[in-house]
């Protein structure tokens, strides 16, 4: 069944902007969407630069046989079946394993987000509506917000089948991939065997907790970390010039005093004997 409207990205599974495009459906409602990243490397991590001109470096794939950079259209995914032997598997072949699930995220049931143990969460994405689906998208987001529910679905992206939760967040739909039950490790053997609780200890801790309450503010933690790194780097920049200064310079972090003393003693003995 072909679409009555030609929509960019609907016929090709992997459009330029997003990771995937298809349809989110629940019962008889179908919403065309694109899957995009919700997590990207932050300003806190170090980036790789070209030492010649300090431009940012990008990752590219390189063919060791032909010694050329390989553009995305010449890349195929494959599996190593024997040493150095790879079988390519095309997107169409992968899609054929589960044709409908490769193009449609069918929400079969809704659940309360609070019921999902955080251990199940894996990766995060956003769904953005494709042309024509904006209204239904907004409606689903708002209805899920009102009812405090999230949709549960299975869908296939490339070679993997994911169990996902779709939840509303600030008027948008976020898609969170979940681990399968069989991938969650049991914890019985590391759970405390002794279960008695010292009531006094517990109430002392509750007091401490009450004194340390705050609102969850992720921006605050990011800023703090940035400040720490900046302070460290500034310190390093200062020290660099200090190191060039003449002797009398204390080497930072020589090591535990006892050990260093023993080593120096051993050194002195050695030099005497030479």
């Amino acid at each position, binding site marked *: 069944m072909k679409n009555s409207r030609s929509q960019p990205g609907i016929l090709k599974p992997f459009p330029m902007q997003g990771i995937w495009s298809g349809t989110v459906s629940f*019962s008889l409602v179908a919403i065309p969407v694109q899957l995009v990243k919700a997590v990207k490397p932050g300003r806190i991590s170090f980036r790789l630069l070209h030492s010649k001109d300090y431009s940012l470096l990008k990752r590219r794939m390189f063919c*060791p046989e032909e010694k050329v950079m390989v553009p995305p259209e010449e890349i195929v995914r494959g599996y190593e079946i024997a040493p150095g032997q790879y079988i390519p598997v095309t997107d169409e072949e992968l899609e054929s394993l589960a044709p409908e699930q490769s193009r449609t995220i069918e929400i079969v049931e809704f659940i309360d987000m609070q019921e999902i143990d955080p251990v199940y969460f894996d990766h995060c994405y956003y769904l953005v*509506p494709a042309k024509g689906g904006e209204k239904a998208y907004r409606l689903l987001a708002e209805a899920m917000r009102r009812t405090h529910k999230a949709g549960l679905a299975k869908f296939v992206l490339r070679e993997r089948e994911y169990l996902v939760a779709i939840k509303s967040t600030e008027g948008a739909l976020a898609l969170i991939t979940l681990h399968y039950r069989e991938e969650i490790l049991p914890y019985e053997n590391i759970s405390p065997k002794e279960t008695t609780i010292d009531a006094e200890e517990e109430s002392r801790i509750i007091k401490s907790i009450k004194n340390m309450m705050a609102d969850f503010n992720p921006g605050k933690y990011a800023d703090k970390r940035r400040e720490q790194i900046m302070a460290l780097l500034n310190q390093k920049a200062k020290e660099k010039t200090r190191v060039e200064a003449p002797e009398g310079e204390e080497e930072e972090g020589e090591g535990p005093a006892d050990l260093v003393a023993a080593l120096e003693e051993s050194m002195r003995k050695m030099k005497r004997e030479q």
Partner: protein
Amino acid sequence: MAGGTIWTGYIHFRETNVPVKLHPAVKENRIQFHLLHRRDKVRLLQQMICATHEKVPVPTEEQAKGFELEEGKYLLVDPAELEAAEPERSRLIEVHEFVQTAQIDPIYLDRVYYLEPDTLVKEYNALAGAMQKMEVAGICTWAIRKRAYLGALQARGKLLRLNTLRYADEVVAVKSLDLPKFSFSEKELELGSELINRLSVPFQPEKFANEHQKKLQNLLDQKARGEIIAIRRPRLLRPTAPDKLVEALEASLKKVA
């Protein structure tokens, strides 16, 4: 059996000190794919190229690490120097504050580790009990092998867990998605909510198994034998037109009744 101990540390705040052992909580089981050159099926290697001089691969000697001060301006860093400068990493999982667990949006949650009590089991239990009663999570920081982590300490049943958090500037803001505003009627919203409630069930993860993996393995075996794979084209769903939304919702409700 839980996974082996990754690291040992101790939870610390005020006078509370609870030694713990970190264990992984998840063990993924997947078929590993590699990237190949379509022409000759050779496994591709990753190389770094210069963004301005696109085609030129940059060898390791010409690569430098930079920390972004502001847009486009970087401070060059020699990571070995930075490592040498950092103070001895302690084993502390320092809790800085507590927040209501319900306030933490799942989009910030990354990986979970189980925490096994090391010694001082009574203290461990008291902490777990207190946090469970108050329904709070402890925002904390720690470092394993020179990598710093931000996380949320949580109690779940008798067990304490460490959940790493994503930093705010690693999460794409909803605002940046530029979603168009669209309005709908109260009726549409009611129908939608009703449908969701009718389709609601308790969360039972054991219902879902990874069936796809077996199919994939069969496909790989077929290909290894040189068999041609029959291509099945998926049926694409026709998107629900905005003016047909009420109709679709009402029909759905009839269906699930």
